[in-house]
């Protein structure tokens, strides 16, 4: 068991090293990456100028719009990697023909899957830090760190829950035979529901009730709600904002923890099971990889 874990860990490390070599070998790419984060944060700052003197109500999420949206960006970047990328990465190793070679190793099915995601991890996770830094240094974002451990818990839960959904999305490549550039799970969640109802740029209380309910089915909504209450200065821990918070008799943060944990416990094992089932189906159907 320990030997297996050591082997899987060593392989994850060598995957990450390979992806880092590839990522860093294009210097222009690295510069563009840096500027991209800077410009995104700048756009948020410009938007915040519009709202500075308005009577728009961000309650219960404090009073700093830049912080509000920078946190939205952070969850968006994580989601972009964990939810949006697995399908594309699995497609990459299918069309590149390497899935067979990864399986001809002592590794579990999941390690190559995690390993090939490192390119996005390298690309997207540091954006979270950079966004927070740019927001704080250049554009007046302020962060409350009194509840940092709780904030990190929500960060961990959104990482795991989006990864679970990402694996469900990736499994559709083999399970449902979606062999093109996109598939419905990723499109529906990442491009439609997250974009519209997660509240990355605005509090979802401004949305019609039906969209607020729709937003209640994705983990992003609860992570953003909790992170903003905890980190945006002036965040309110008691005022209920999300539909589920009104329905359950708990404090908002507790509801967020319950909802996110429940989602994680459902989608992560489901994602693992579906991905492994997809590989086994491909072994039966002969669609594991494509040579020539």
């Amino acid at each position, binding site marked *: 068991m320990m030997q297996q874990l050591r*082997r899987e860990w*060593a*392989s994850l*490390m*060598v995957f990450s*090293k*390979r992806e880092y*070599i*590839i990522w860093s*070998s294009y210097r222009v790419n690295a510069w563009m990456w840096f500027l991209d984060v800077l410009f995104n944060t700048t756009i948020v700052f410009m938007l915040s100028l519009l709202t500075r003197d308005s009577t728009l109500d961000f309650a219960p999420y404090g009073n700093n719009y830049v912080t509000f949206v920078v946190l939205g960006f952070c969850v968006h970047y994580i989601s972009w990697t964990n939810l949006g990328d697995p399908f594309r990465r699995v497609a990459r190793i299918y069309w*590149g*023909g*390497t899935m*067979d*070679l*990864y*399986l*001809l*190793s*002592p*590794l579990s099915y999941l390690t*190559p899957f995690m390993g090939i995601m490192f390119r996005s991890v390298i690309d997207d996770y540091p954006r979270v830090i950079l966004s927070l830094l740019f927001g704080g240094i250049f554009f007046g974002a302020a962060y409350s760190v009194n509840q940092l451990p709780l904030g990190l818990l929500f960060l961990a839960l959104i990482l795991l829950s989006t990864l679970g959904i990402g694996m469900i999305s990736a499994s559709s490549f083999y399970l449902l035979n979606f062999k093109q550039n996109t598939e419905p799970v990723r499109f529906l969640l990442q491009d439609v529901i997250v974009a519209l109802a997660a509240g990355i740029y605005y509090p979802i209380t401004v949305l019609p009730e039906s969209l607020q309910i729709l937003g209640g089915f994705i983990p992003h909504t609860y992570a953003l709600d909790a992170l903003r209450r905890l980190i945006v200065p002036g965040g309110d821990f008691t005022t209920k904002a999300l539909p589920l918070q009104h329905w359950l008799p708990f404090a908002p943060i507790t509801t967020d923890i319950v909802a996110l944990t429940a989602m994680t416990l459902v989608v992560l094992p489901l994602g693992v099971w579906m991905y492994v089932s997809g590989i*086994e189906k491909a*072994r*039966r*159907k*002969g669609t*594991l990889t494509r*040579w*020539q």
Partner: protein
Amino acid sequence: MAVEPVIALQQLVKTFQIRDSLFRSHPLNAVDNVDLDVHTGEVLGLLGRNGAGKTTLIKMMAGLLRPDGGTGRVLGYDVYRDHKKIRASVSLVAPTADVGTDNNLTVRQNLEFWAVVYDLDRQLRDQRIDELLTFLNLKSYEDHWPISISAGMRQRLAIARSLLVHNPILFLDEPTVKLDAAGAHAVREFIRKINREFGITIILTTHFIFEAERLCDRVAIMDEGKIMSCDSVANLRRHLQRYDSSVIQCGEVPESLRREAIRHLGALPQVASCSFQGERAEAAQFEISADPLESVLFDALKTLRAHDIDIHAVDTNQPSLEDIFLDTVNSKGAS
């Protein structure tokens, strides 16, 4: 004591559903009741046309594809239950060297990456990579990008990757298919060397008949998912429904002597037929078909000399593997 085969397949079947339209599909037997034993240290060639089922069979033996029927053991592991153990114990080289080769990493970095993935012991990694780079004449290219070296070298890099861990079985799927003549020749030499020096059992697919003839201890001829024949090239020749023949060119032969010689030649054991062609001295020749030819040729020449016939030249015409392949496929099984 009988030696246990490293691969033993009985009645192995793989069927794919081929979709004709949105609602209709038909089954295709990619591998159809295949029986096959492969022994330690041998080079077995799977010879067949495109779509014959060679790659499907290799993938089932490598644990990458689940059979639909039959039974099989690879290295003692069951092909259904122990597919993970099989996969961890065999190596495979895909038809194109670019599979598994990352052009953003150098030749050496590529091998370093796969050495960890294949769980090569940390202490052995550098040493094994150096050995393989030297063995496959890639040492001077270790810091090159794969894209900057020739296709033949990239194929050698793919072979090096498959040899990082000394697995007892190596599957090579059309290892020379995309190479020029020189590159293909070099790869064939390395395949022979790998088999000789490491004692690795090699199963290779090819549709190059001369490649199978040069490299393989045994050749399995596949067509439409079935193994039509499986034996050494020499035995396949023997089983072929055609006799080896020899043409003996000679000087002018009078009519009476010719009939007499044919009668004597035809009476020799193992001679299937004997004929004479050509009236003019410069074109006169006897043609003898026999099985096996070698055992009768000397007696035939002695018989002709005993009849005072001048022998100018002797030419034997053994069927090539190509003849055997075509004959086997066309007759749906020679043995």
